């Protein structure tokens, strides 16, 4: 007996990207270590393809990663078409053979993660480790994740709700114990 005859609705597979939740970042820079270890074979954060910016005065840390960019200034600014964008994954790639080291992309990158390696004269550009990024695997708190945009919105909604529930519980508790904040 055949229970199901129709075909399944077609679902577009969305491309994954590096998604950052800066509220979870502790500023430990393990991502930078893991990135340089994988890409350079040494521990050298100055050559990492991402960057944690620490604000010691505010107690805040913000990881800067490649993407997700709606527009890709690095592609548009490149005079020799060395930087290209994959139409499906929306990830940008650098073709090192074409690159003339004009550094325009480094200047145009809004996240500041395209960099020039001055010792070996080359542009450093994240390639998401071919779909299995080391930084997201190494991050101890889940501040950097590799997921699709759809997953990201579900995750952030989930986080928000848990946050609200925590807040409600806390308020209830403090009111019980005398109303201090």
């Amino acid at each position, binding site marked *: 007996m055949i229970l199901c005859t129709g075909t399944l609705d077609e679902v577009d597979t969305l491309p994954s990207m590096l998604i950052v939740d800066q*509220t979870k970042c*502790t*500023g*430990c*820079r*393990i991502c930078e*270590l*893991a990135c*340089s*270890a*994988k890409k*350079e*074979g*040494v*521990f*050298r*954060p*100055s*050559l990492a393809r991402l960057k944690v*910016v*620490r604000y*010691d*005065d*505010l*107690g*805040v*840390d913000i990881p800067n990663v490649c993407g997700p960019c709606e527009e890709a200034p690095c592609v548009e600014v490149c005079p020799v078409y060395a930087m290209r964008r994959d139409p499906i994954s929306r990830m940008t790639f650098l073709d090192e053979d074409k690159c003339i080291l004009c550094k325009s992309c480094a200047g145009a990158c809004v996240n500041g993660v395209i960099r020039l390696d001055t010792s070996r004269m080359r542009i450093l550009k994240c390639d998401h480790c071919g779909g299995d990024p080391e930084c997201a695997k*190494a991050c*101890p*708190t889940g501040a950097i994740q590799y997921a699709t945009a759809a997953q990201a919105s579900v995750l952030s909604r989930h986080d928000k709700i848990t946050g609200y529930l925590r807040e409600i519980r*806390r308020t209830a*508790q*403090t009111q019980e114990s005398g109303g*201090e*904040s």
Partner: protein
Amino acid sequence: MKPGGYAGRILRADLNRRDFRVEPVPSEWVAEYIGGDGFAARILYDEVPAKADPLGEKNRLILATGPVTGTLWPMSGRTVFISKSPLTGIWGESHVGGFIGPELKYAGYDVLVIEGRAEKPVYVSICDQDLEIINASDLWGLKTDEVSAAIRSRHNDPDVQVAAIGPAGERCVRFASVIVNNARAAGRTGMGAVLGSKNVKAIAVRGHQGIAVNDHERFVELANDAHRRVRQNPQAQQMHKYGTWVLTAVKQTIGELPTYNHRTGVFSGWEKLSGDYIRPRYTIGDRACFGCSLGCKKVNYIREGPYAGTLEEGPEYEGLMAFGSLLGISDFPTALRANQICNRLGVDMISAGSCIAFATEAFQNGLIDSKMTGGIDLEWGNSEQALRLLDMIGNRTGFGDLLAEGSREASRRIGRGSEQFAIHVKGLEVSGQDGRTHRSIGLSHATGARGADHLRSLVTVDQLGYQEVAAKRWGCDKLPEIVDPYTEKYKAAAVVETENTYCIRDALIVCWYSVSWPPIFWMEDFAQMLPVLTGVSRFGERKNLIEIAERQVTLKRLFNAREGISRKDDTLPKRFTVDPMPEGPGKGQKVNLEPMLNDYYRLRGWDEITGLPTEETVRRLTLEWTHSHSASS
């Protein structure tokens, strides 16, 4: 071949000649000391003559890292400041987290040695091979956070890592600290005063090099596995949530929470100083030091009350204790505010709190009066007063000028029997433990190289009653005594074994929290990792690591012996050995130090009568070279 993990260079900043020198790390040092504390002990013993003035030109300040610093191994962001201490006059060291240690390695140096004395305020700037001693007249007088901001803005690089002293360091407050990343303190033993005496306002470091290890792939594998162990460890998970505040409740339960200048071990207001209370009310963020997946640093904000608007990282348990229970204050905002003042002025929170507690008890007993304190009627539990005194200590104004000398010297000047209220060992104020309800820490406080110290050999296994861990570590035959915090039996064995592990920790350098409560990593884990990291196969054997640890302990002891330290100085304040614990679970307990000391010296290979390393031990640990320096005074 250069061993993996090292930069291989020692950088010397000569302030007299305003010049730098770069030397290779002698290859035999690697096998004998590993790095960190070991290298620094070698240099300090060698170069600082006996009886030299800690605040004089001949003292050195050493900033040391180890082979693990700056690699992917968990908690590898630690670094150490070492010098002869102006507070105690003996071995001084203070470890700190943050980011400056790895940055020094990335700049290409394992160790920085600061020598001589600058005529005018300067800061030492290191950016790879660009080395400069720069005029800092415009920075003199600034608080530590302002110094960091000013240097970063001057170099136009927010990634410059700055170790700065505040006004307290400039004024040579005997327990002035060095602050990195605004809120990480190399607090103890007055390393900030040493920098201040040399007219060095800050050390600024930026590096772009890499650290290569011996077997990269295997090391990354081991390190990732180690990170997993940290994340899955239940104690580490607690630490991520509450930081060291978890300890307040633990200490209260076992009656070891120092209260009213260590008079008692239980505090009625402990709940408001516990993690469960603080986190939901004040904590707004979690932070970590370099390469740490544990992340114990908490960013806190005070929304209302007299200290509304205070935003600061910390304090640790020790800070909560020093400006909480020790002074009878049951208020987190006060401790956070005190922490902020300590960080900005550059003062050690433990010693500062302890000095205020000393003054309060002396005042209460009529040994000092309000004429002496400048009109302050010292009393327990007064927040406003404690913060005012802290500010006076940091700036050396009024009565604070006397307390800035440390409780030992202050009590000596006051006299009249006030010495009994100065709770210190060898001049270092006692940290937040109590030997009466935790015997092994009594021995640790008495024998620690830098004085009453909880970081050289604090055994937590007996205190928290981990029977299985104790059996695995010290053998079933020593149970149940070894986990009984109220007996002296076998405690020396536990202290020696723990001290050895901690010595390796301080040589690598990794964070305290990876080897405690109970350890996430054991000596065996380091023995597995070190050969992969360095390529030195003898590090692969536990007994070799133990020998390196023994060498480090004994060398520090020889340094202290040269300054006149012997068994007579390995004591505890009478508060712990004569006065029994007045209340709580450990009521009636006191420390009987002598049998533990005998055991300790025997296990260390030191003479039981003098407490000094025997000739045989010196030879076994290849420390004969120290003989030629002994008479150099």
